[in-house]
């Protein structure tokens, strides 16, 4: 579905990614974990056309989409939910949702989708006329996730969905992501809350110093002591050669 081949890139002259490679299959959740500064969010920006890519290729369903703009990536069926608060504060919940479909030609269809999406997030229907800034942090995150669904995406890049949310809301967001996966949507997620995220994921990916260090089934990563070591502040030792 999505394949990164030896991606190198960064901001201006500062290189962050030093050879990121992985493949993720369709209809799965893959969680990207790694220490601070590993390049997790930067990978998302590279995929979504927000970063200079110096070397490497990004393939989406076999098609080369390297250096495609955010608008082109949206047209390819990719949406991106960055970390932090990403609503348009003075617009209503409904109009924030509508912006999720701003690139669509058929706005009547977008309005239909908004109704369907609000069925999945009843709180957004209740507050549809409220300004986005008046929602709680958790409600704003739900709004962002809901907005990312407006164009019926095939791949969602979601960065740190649990930041600022209560444990209950985190479970709700994770449950939503699982439902989407079951409907065939592919999800690539960055999450500091590694254990909880890997628990709902099919695959896990460990980045360190801008490189792919591990890529395996989520349950294997959860059981791997090297992953625990990484999150205790160490770094992954190269596996001894047989």
């Amino acid at each position, binding site marked *: 579905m999505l394949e990164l081949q030896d991606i190198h890139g960064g901001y201006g002259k500062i290189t962050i990614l030093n050879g990121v490679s992985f493949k993720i299959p369709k209809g799965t959740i893959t969680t990207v974990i790694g220490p601070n500064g590993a390049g997790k969010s930067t990978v998302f920006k590279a995929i*979504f056309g*927000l970063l200079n890519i110096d070397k490497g290729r990004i393939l989406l369903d076999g098609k080369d989409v390297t250096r495609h703009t*955010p*608008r082109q990536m*949206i047209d390819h069926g990719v949406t*991106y939910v*960055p970390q932090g608060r*990403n*609503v*348009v*504060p*003075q*617009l209503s919940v409904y*109009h924030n949702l*509508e*912006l*999720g479909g*701003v*690139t669509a030609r058929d*706005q009547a269809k977008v309005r239909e989708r908004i109704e369907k999406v609000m069925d999945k997030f009843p709180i957004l229907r209740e507050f549809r006329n409220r300004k986005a*800034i008046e929602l709680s942090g958790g409600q704003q995150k739900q709004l962002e996730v809901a*907005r990312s669904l407006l164009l019926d995406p095939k791949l969602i890049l979601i960065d740190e969905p649990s930041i600022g949310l209560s444990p209950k809301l985190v479970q709700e967001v994770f449950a939503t992501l699982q439902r989407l996966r079951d409907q065939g949507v592919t999800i690539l997620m960055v999450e500091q809350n590694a254990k909880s995220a890997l628990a709902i994921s099919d695959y896990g990916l460990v980045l360190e110093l801008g490189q792919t260090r591990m890529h395996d089934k989520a349950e294997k990563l959860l059981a791997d002591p090297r992953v625990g070591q990484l999150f205790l502040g160490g770094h992954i030792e190269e596996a001894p050669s047989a």
Partner: protein
Amino acid sequence: MSQFLQVLLSGLATGSIYALVAIGFTLVWQAAQTVNFAQGEFVMVPAFFVLVGTNILGFPLALSLGLALLLAIALLGAVFKKLVVDPILPSGGISLIIATMALGILLRESVKEFYGAEAQPFPAMFPTNPINVFGAVVSMQDMLNLLISLAVVVVLTLFLNRTRTGRSMQAAAQNPAVAEILGVNVKRMVMYAFLINAALAALASFLITPVYLAKFSNGETLGLVAFIAAIVGGFNQIRGALVGGLLIGVLDNLVATYVTAEYRAALPLILLIFIILVRPQGIMGTSEGRAV
């Protein structure tokens, strides 16, 4: 009572034109996070475009107005953004503010050199004969100025709030990073803000110059009063700019009629100091940030 109504309506008519210019300040602030201190000159210049059309090229007034509007949108909107804002904005808002001050001086002095320092008569677009409104005698020109200005503000507000492009402009102003990842063409939305600002300035020019005559220095007072109106109303809200403009227009007339006309130029400044002391975000402004 009829005198009060007369003063009120006349103040609203002038204030509504201030509001058009103040809204332009607000739009440019939203789009580029800077203050265009050449805004007053942006109002002064289109009147001279019209005079060139009617007096030098011999075009009829309607054609001259149309061409002046288009020229203003092109030069004071698109060219201003491309040649002044885009290259200087990366150096910071302060640099751009200084650049717009310089541009204001350039425009002022250029018009003075080209057309002279004397005030020029400007053809009225509407009849100036007095009409009776609930006992108050006001000029038809004032009433039409008021109605047209308010209609433009209503249309602009509807455009920003009810259309996809308008809401995309709001998204680009309030959270450009999010707007970009949603597929909004942020650069285009910013350009629209500059084009609308130029159109508003040109319209204000066409409405107010028949009253004040066309003079190279017209922009100084108008730019200052509109800037104050935008701050008084709330710099991050279009409705704030409207309220600020109307308030200054009405207070100016009321004070000049019932108190003294001697210090009327000081009134907007006194109002500005008062508002900054008691409500720094402006009458309608919000403290949470940018919003068109």
